[in-house]
């Protein structure tokens, strides 16, 4: 059936075109993204409209899908040999898989012409860079922070924790007052993984992960850093820092956020998308007692407390595209300054393009954190090859559920790394 509808559609289009007096055959580009949200989707639609206005001979077909189905859909489209011309990814290992299979167009030449490259924030453009070549443009900046309920902090005289010790103290205070210290929706596994990645970064610094990934001598995923991070995760769980049954709470439909809005929980660690979620879901709460702070430093750890865990959206062109020139041209429109400004003003996200202005004070705060960050640690599950990414999420979920020891989790990761990363 799946193949039937496109055929039917094509026949219908052919019939209508032959009936109408259009003699000019338009070029067709398909663009797949994951902005199913009305606001963010309309921003991309506007960018596509601008492109179509400047290129009257091109028709862009925009398809938005939900995050997880999108992954499956794109994979099947690539595998069956008719991928979309322009598609969304998160950079990292997932995109790299497609690049290794020769499915993604290298656009370094175009980026280096007329200073196109220079409009982007370099550290985010680099997330589309593999083996020194560029395979896409960045269109979003996100980082993970600790979001909190100001009112609760004031009520129980809790200062914003700067160190891990202070965080533990805050947890104890909230716990004793029957407030859930840190909300967590770990059904999707990545919210918990954020905490693990932060702990690992604060303990071992950026090099611990980078060198384990590059298989450098003396570094591995079994290193003390990762075991220690696992221990701290279980320490937090034992303290009762998280809500009951967090491994079954769904972040995607807001089950964990509602605890924060309703004053049942004091904090939650989430990406900057949290901002736009809150703006839409709880506008009053957003205005009056919503704020954020960076993940606390760990005493004696090697990591810089300004480091952030973050990610981006990358838009790339498929190497099988029939209209490469137009597709690359479309990339400009869906990542330029006009788009970036709308992305900031309307959606409350951040854009990795220079010269945009952030008006919202809280968003400005997030942008400043990003500007000050010495290092952006990519989300492991997006950066690593997919099998490792999934294992990382599974083992972290088990760590949180205390059904696996930190040593076991680290051993599993290292065993998989030996299989997956040696090939590189």
């Amino acid at each position, binding site marked *: 059936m799946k193949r039937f509808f496109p055929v039917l559609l094509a026949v219908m289009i052919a019939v209508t075109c032959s009936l109408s007096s259009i003699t000019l055959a338009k070029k067709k580009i398909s663009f797949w993204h994951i902005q199913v949200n009305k606001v963010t989707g309309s921003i991309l639609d506007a960018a596509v409209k601008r492109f179509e206005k400047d290129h009257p001979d091109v028709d862009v077909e925009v398809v938005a899908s939900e995050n997880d189905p999108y*992954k*499956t859909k794109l*994979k*099947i489209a*690539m*595998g069956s*040999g008719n991928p979309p011309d322009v598609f969304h990814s998160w950079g990292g290992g997932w995109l790299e*898989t*497609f690049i*290794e*299979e*020769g*499915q993604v167009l290298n656009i370094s030449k175009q980026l280096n012409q007329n200073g196109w490259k220079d409009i982007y924030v370099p550290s985010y453009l680099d997330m589309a860079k593999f083996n020194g070549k560029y395979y896409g443009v960045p269109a979003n900046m996100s980082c993970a922070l600790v979001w909190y309920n100001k009112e609760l902090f004031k009520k129980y005289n809790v200062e914003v924790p700067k160190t891990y010790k202070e965080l533990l103290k805050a947890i104890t205070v909230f716990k004793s007052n029957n407030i*859930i210290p840190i909300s967590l929706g*770990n*059904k*999707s*596994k990545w919210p918990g993984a954020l905490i693990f990645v932060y702990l690992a970064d604060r303990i071992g610094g950026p090099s611990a992960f980078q060198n384990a990934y590059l298989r450098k001598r003396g570094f591995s995923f079994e290193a003390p850093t990762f075991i220690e991070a696992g221990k701290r995760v279980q320490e937090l769980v034992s303290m009762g820092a998280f*809500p*009951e*049954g*967090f*491994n*079954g*709470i*769904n972040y995607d*439909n807001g*089950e964990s956020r*509602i*605890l924060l809005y309703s004053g*049942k929980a004091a904090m939650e660690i989430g990406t900057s998308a949290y901002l736009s979620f809150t703006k839409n879901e709880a506008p009053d709460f957003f205005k009056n007692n919503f704020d954020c702070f960076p993940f606390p430093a760990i005493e004696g750890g090697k990591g810089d407390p300004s480091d952030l865990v973050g990610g981006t959206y990358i838009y790339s062109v498929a190497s099988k595209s029939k209209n490469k020139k137009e597709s690359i041209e479309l990339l400009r429109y869906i990542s330029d300054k006009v788009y970036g400004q709308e992305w900031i003003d309307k959606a409350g996200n951040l854009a990795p393009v220079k010269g945009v202005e952030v008006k919202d004070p809280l968003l400005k705060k997030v942008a400043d954190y990003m500007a000050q960050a010495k290092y952006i640690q990519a989300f492991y599950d997006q950066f690593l090859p*997919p*099998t490792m990414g*999934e294992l990382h999420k*599974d083992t972290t*979920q*088990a760590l949180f*559920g205390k*059904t*696996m020891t930190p040593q076991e989790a680290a051993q599993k990761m290292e065993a998989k790394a030996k299989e997956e990363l040696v090939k590189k």
Partner: protein
Amino acid sequence: MVNPQFIDRAVEENKKIRNQSKLQYRLMVVLFLLPALIVYGIFNIYGILMTFFYSLQKWSGISAKMSFIGLENYVKLLQDPVLWHSLSNNLILVVVSIAIQLPMGLILALIINSGLKGMKFFRTVYFIPMLVSTVAIGILWSLIYNPSFGMLNAILDLMKMGQFKTGWLGNETTAFAAVLITICWQFTPFYMILMRAGLVGIPNEIYESASIDGANGWKAFWNITLPLMAPVIKTSAVLSLVGSLKYFDLIYVMTDGGPNHATELMSTYMYKNSFVEFNMGYGSSIAAFIFMVAIFITATMLCFTRKTRVGE
């Protein structure tokens, strides 16, 4: 007087016509079956054959590169602890489905068939879960099980049993049981309708004559209803068995196989490998494994029940 030769000729012509019409009839049957057969061939048989073909390859599912690796995927599969864990989950699901859904279905069928007042209303109520889409059921029950504002924990609170509260779907020990309950709730009405159709098919005269012989209530159920229902029960059991072996959707919605593979079924594990982790070859070998397990178990069950067939 009729010429005997003439009779012979008539008989012969008759035969010819009959043969012709037989052939025509057969052609017609084939012609009517053809569309369904073509669709079935392309989407099922070809699909199954290709699954076996892909399971012998190392293939990511997105590249043009495919390399033949023989039985390597199967060797890996037999050593994969997660696969055996999912198989055991599937077998638990089979047993639970047959042991709970079928009797429950039969009991409900007997209740709505009892002809008591107001049964029309209950028939509708019992049938509702069958009409709701699986995704909606998954979300509904996820909310019931929700640890912070779910109905189940609220009820426990009301009953002063707060110590039993837990995050049902997030806790590895309770997650699978919670999902099983939901699955039973979803499919019991289906068997109820099947069983009811079977009950309606039993002629009343049998019960009447039995009651003259003094067999009433429990005795009549045991000696008349159950034996006459055997074919329906058998059909239900096979349906339930095959359905349980390839079950996927509710798990995908509610727990996605988590936490830490506690609710993983073979099909969800196959999906993960094929579409999430870029291992189409390995995923296909899991699919082939599911196929073989299902064939083996179903065949065993059919053989087993054929010997003890009653009343056919």
